């Protein structure tokens, strides 16, 4: 096949590209320039689109022996990922930008452009597997569960999965680094990136405050009584306990947690730990990575964070909403997060959480 390898400048995508070449594909390396004003250097684990990263990607492509180009996706990234991130926070939800990037950039803008140019698919260094089954090409967890990235890929449609190649899903990260070393790739020991790539300082709250303002507002208890003041509602997360600066203690001295963020009234609602418990969630705009879920209730697992646990549940479709009923309650679940349904290690699909109870 003729493939585009998306090369971030990190070790994973470099090894993925090398493996695709070795598998006999005709591969071209592409680095996505996602920032209109890239930083010159990486700082720690932050950022993946600095000029230094693009040099690392180019060097890896040269060592592997494939052509290399840089594609400017800054506008698409800003509109599809950064703006979405801001508007989700402004609406009191907690978005995952990596998921949006996969949905709108890597397996949409890039895959579409690649196909229009005569390529068959996109190779990435994500830790996930695909399998060819009777139901078509399906998406699965990586064998290295600690690195598994199927959660952030759960927004891919069957059509997008058909054009996605994940060569690293069968290997542990430790072995990928060893392999990179053996292949003479200078990025073999480059640190992983963890934080949000477009917040180079790593200070998400400060970054949001700069863009959304820091209008103060009340922190109230569940009876609506004001017990403190916040500096920008969206800088709080559901389940947050520290840094609330509350002046009125509870009767029994037990701690309070953020239960809800109400953007319209600019209010943060706090309450007791047990009030964080969630047993049921609904998600909007579901995407199926294989056969669609129906109104028939099935048993499986739901995961609500990129590296969170898989929670036993029943799931079904209720109208346009994907519903998961948990066997055991979960503490602290924000709307805006993705709920990803698994059948064993197969990704069934995902939806954006819009309601919890």
């Amino acid at each position, binding site marked *: 096949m003729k493939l585009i390898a998306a090369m971030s400048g990190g070790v994973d995508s470099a090894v993925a590209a090398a493996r695709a070449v070795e598998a006999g594909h005709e591969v071209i390396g592409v680095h996505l320039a996602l920032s209109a004003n890239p930083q010159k250097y990486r700082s720690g684990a932050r950022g993946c689109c600095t000029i230094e990263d693009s040099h690392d990607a*180019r060097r890896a492509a040269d060592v592997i022996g494939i052509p290399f*180009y840089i594609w400017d996706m800054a506008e698409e990234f800003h509109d599809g990922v950064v703006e979405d991130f801001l508007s989700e926070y402004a609406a009191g939800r907690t978005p995952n930008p990596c998921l949006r990037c996969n949905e709108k950039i890597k397996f949409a*803008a890039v895959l579409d452009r690649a196909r229009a140019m005569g390529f068959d698919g996109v190779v990435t260094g994500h830790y996930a597997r695909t399998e060819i089954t009777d139901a078509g090409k399906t998406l699965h967890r990586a064998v290295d569960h600690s690195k598994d990235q199927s959660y952030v890929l759960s927004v891919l449609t069957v059509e997008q999965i058909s054009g996605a190649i994940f060569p690293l899903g069968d290997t542990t990260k430790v072995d990928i680094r060893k392999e990179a070393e053996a292949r003479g790739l200078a990025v073999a020991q480059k640190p992983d990136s963890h934080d949000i790539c477009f917040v180079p300082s790593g200070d998400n709250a400060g970054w949001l405050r700069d863009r959304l303002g820091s209008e103060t507002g009340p922190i109230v208890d569940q009876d609506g009584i004001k017990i403190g003041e916040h500096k920008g509602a969206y800088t709080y997360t559901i389940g947050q306990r520290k840094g609330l600066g509350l002046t009125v203690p509870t009767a029994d001295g037990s701690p309070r947690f953020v239960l809800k963020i109400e953007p319209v009234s600019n209010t943060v609602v706090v309450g007791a730990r047990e009030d964080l418990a969630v047993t049921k969630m609904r998600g909007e705009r579901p995407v199926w990575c294989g056969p669609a879920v129906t109104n028939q209730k099935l048993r499986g697992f739901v995961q609500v964070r990129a590296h969170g646990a898989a929670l036993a549940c029943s799931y079904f479709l209720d109208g346009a909403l994907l519903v998961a009923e948990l066997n055991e309650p979960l503490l602290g679940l924000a709307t805006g997060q993705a709920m990803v349904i698994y059948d064993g290690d197969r990704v069934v699909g995902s939806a954006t959480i819009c309601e919890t109870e």
Partner: protein
Amino acid sequence: MSSIYLDHAATTPMVEDALIAMTAQLAQLGNPSSLHTHGRATRKTLEDAREVIAKEVGCLPSEVIFTASGTEANNTALKGLYWQGRDNGRHVVVISAIEHHAIIDPAHWLQEHEGAEIITIPVNAGGVVDLDFLSHLIATRGNEIAVISIMHSNNETGVLQPIRKVVEIAGEIPVHTDAVQSFKKTPLSFSQLGVYAMTLSAHKIGGPLGIGALILRRAVEIPALLHGGGQEREIRSGTLNAPAIVGFAAAAKSKHYDVAHVASLRDSFIAGINAAIPDATINGISSDRLPGIVNVTFPGTQSDTLLLLMDGQRVSCSTGSACSAGVHEASHVLLAMGHNEVSAQSSLRFSFGATSTYADCDFVVSVLPDVITRGRAANFS
């Protein structure tokens, strides 16, 4: 699949004479500044080379100042002439809108750090500088201008600039011209142009990389950028790169570049493009141009996509403009000629050299329809 190189304006193969002369000189021992036999031997060879270049470019040997690149020559000239002018109360730097970044960027540096004011001369739709603008500027602010720098021909479009007329209009104001693309491609004489300073580069004419020259009028003394041994008129220090200079001279003397042949290749290529892609337009077609450069706008495409697809056909060409962090930017040259951001990013530069053939042209024309179709599809995907 054989590969086709149509990026000779970026760099062009070394001519055999230059390769032989340079390789031989690499084996010779002696610093040309040394006073002993070894030093004198290298000095002799080097001064022979200087005389060859001087003759080819119509200047005195003493007017040739060797530099490590065209960029260095441009920086030396622009900054040096500006500082000299500033000492006499002149703070304006005049450049054209289509200069290479090796002029634009030092001009901006002078503005940010050295108190210069930049005035930019616009070009017409054909890519030629506006002489009326220049005349008016000199009539109104002539006594403030330290230096005027206008390229001899443009590296993206190949359009020639009326430097002789610029010098007439400028009168006593120093004029520098970046002639990197023109040397050996079109008649070029330093003395006939009447400029104060002119930039050359060896690797654009079949010489080696890493050597250029600033041709600077005799008795014009400007402040140096590099200080040290004072080798080149105290204006440029650093041990002279004798092997590269010898290669430069051999390329300058060589008759390998047949202007008529290259121009005929270009014209046949343009005819082929017009037939294959009827809505393509050639930038600067109505103006006098260098024989080897064709800058084409393909509506509805993006240059970087076209470059990738051409590369996939083993055709090396260029988007013609600068990259910022590897991201292709709209060409300031095409914008100055009246393109908008979108059409300026839909262009490719093909540049021919002495080794180019009709078969090269035919092959590129044969793959163009498919490349443009895919490029358009990718642009709207």
